[in-house]
């Protein structure tokens, strides 16, 4: 197990390093003069020259890369050009708020998705299973930004139950006002993934329920609830963990869109801001942060899988 963890950690470090090269390359090698991008197309040649000198853009690319990369290793994530502040605190602030949003959504996806999936599997073929299947099919086909528009239209414009956009800090406005700004984005972020998770939980639960050891458990007279809870569920949930890891990636992507629609000041909206204002250092730093989070989420899922799966836990070299 220790060797497995060490190897996976090493892979995360490798991914981050390779990603730093890719991010740097895309930002610096793609056509488009960085200084002109920042200053706008009407910049004078002299102001471009001054900015290029200031940013060290005349140095060879490998040197520029090394300067950026080694600064990151020392905790310096560069300077946001538009805000004229160090990027790291700006990103960490936004990350905190995104974590609240994504964390609540993830809890909702895991709990509701698994519950609905198990319910559909144990009620296979009934009307509620069919209704769930249809709902899942429709929900997967609706883009999350359209869910967001519908939610704003219905709950904010029409019913005036919830604020349409924005965010208020918990410490300033109290729990209720804080939550009221979170409900719509959290639900919109979760809704498509709940459908995804429940659909796959249903099918893995059905596979397990078909297996012989469940037949044996039933044959020895165990009450159905025990069969489900003690025997079927732990095994049916193993593939769900992998699905939840994949969905964590979709969730991180969804955060970008949902934060933009709801004007929620998180990391996703910060990245869109960085692109709109050509704040390339901020963009690079934010992308590195997202890569790191995604890699860690995958690592966590792999470790949880390995920990819960006896074949890997006791198998040593497997995986």
């Amino acid at each position, binding site marked *: 197990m220790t060797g497995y963890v060490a190897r996976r950690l090493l892979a995360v470090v490798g991914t981050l390093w390779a990603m730093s090269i890719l991010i740097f390359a895309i930002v610096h090698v793609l056509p488009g003069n960085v200084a002109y*991008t920042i200053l706008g197309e009407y910049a004078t040649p002299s102001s471009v020259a001054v900015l290029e000198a200031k940013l060290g853009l005349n140095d060879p690319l490998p040197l520029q890369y090394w300067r950026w990369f080694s600064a990151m290793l020392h905790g310096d994530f560069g300077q946001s050009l538009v805000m004229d502040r160090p990027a790291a605190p700006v990103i960490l602030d936004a990350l905190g708020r995104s974590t609240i949003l994504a964390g609540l959504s993830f809890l909702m996806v895991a709990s509701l998705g698994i519950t609905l999936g198990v319910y559909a599997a144990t009620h296979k073929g009934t009307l509620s299973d069919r209704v769930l299947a249809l709902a899942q*099919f429709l929900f997967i086909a609706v883009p999350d*930004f359209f869910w967001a528009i519908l939610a704003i239209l219905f709950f904010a*414009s029409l019913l005036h139950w919830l604020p349409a956009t924005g965010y208020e800090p918990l410490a300033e406005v109290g729990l209720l006002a804080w939550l009221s700004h979170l409900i719509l984005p959290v639900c919109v972020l979760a809704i498509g993934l709940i459908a995804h998770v429940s659909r796959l939980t249903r099918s893995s639960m059905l596979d397990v329920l078909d297996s012989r050891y469940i037949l044996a458990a039933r044959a020895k007279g165990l009450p159905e609830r025990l069969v489900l809870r003690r025997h079927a569920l732990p095994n049916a949930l193993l593939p769900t963990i992998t699905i939840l890891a994949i969905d964590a990636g979709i969730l991180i992507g969804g955060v970008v869109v949902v934060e933009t629609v709801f004007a929620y000041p998180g990391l996703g909206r910060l990245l*869109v801001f960085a692109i709109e204002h050509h704040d390339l250092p901020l963009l690079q730093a934010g992308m590195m942060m*997202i890569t790191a989070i995604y890699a860690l989420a995958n690592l966590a899922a792999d470790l949880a899988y390995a920990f819960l799966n006896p074949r890997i836990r006791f198998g040593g070299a497997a995986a």
Partner: protein
Amino acid sequence: MSGVPRTLLLGGAVLAAIALLAIAGPWLTPYDPTGFSVRARFSPPSAAHWFGTDEFGRDVLSRVLAGAHYSLAIGFGAMTICLVFGVPLGLLAAFHRGVVDEAIMRAVDLLISLPPILLGMLILAVTPPNLWKTIVAVGIVYIPILARLTRSVALGLLEEDFVQAARARGEGSVSILWREILPNAWSPIIVESGLRVTFAILLGSSLSFLGLGPQPPGSEWGLMIAESRQFIDRAPWVGLAPGLCLCVLLIAVNLFGEGLREYLDPRLRGRAHG
């Protein structure tokens, strides 16, 4: 038509209808999709303007029709790019185990270490966006998935007896590739790309919702929805019309993809659909 799944027929029919509307769009639009009309600003849906008008008095139905081709172009264009690059890369990796395989698979791992939409944003961040760049970006995002799938299918086939037999007959790599591997690898590849078109359209419209796709006055549906947000209280129809169209398109493509899988996957064939 027995044997052809109903989902494939239904999805295909709706998809064909949308494609026809997209191609014939420029001739069908009742108004000029970019024509301003100050007096008709924010008209609700009526007999004259079925989907109403937007903040410049432009007819929303005309704009939706004129924008139908974007999503189709992104979805199917990106998938073509995936097939053209992903399949050869996967085959190359399967045929040349060792350094080539290692290099290709590490590149694949790298590209999937960012969630799709963020990889798309990164690719489109620096240069000014347009339709073609969005198609290429979405294509690049999904190349790794097809490369990986092709590689695993080809590796499986390489172990099969009929390929071993071809080797024993002394056939060259190219001949084995063309005559033994590809004909047998097509169906899982087509199935996967059929299912991926839905994701490609979703990703493309999300990117253009964020401003990283076709630019105004183009009327890509995701972009139209993004623009409608400012006056969602006054004129909800401006965003609802393209949004509902996008949903219909996505459902049709998804049905088509699922139907294709049912039709081509021998394990699913003949199984009752429920």
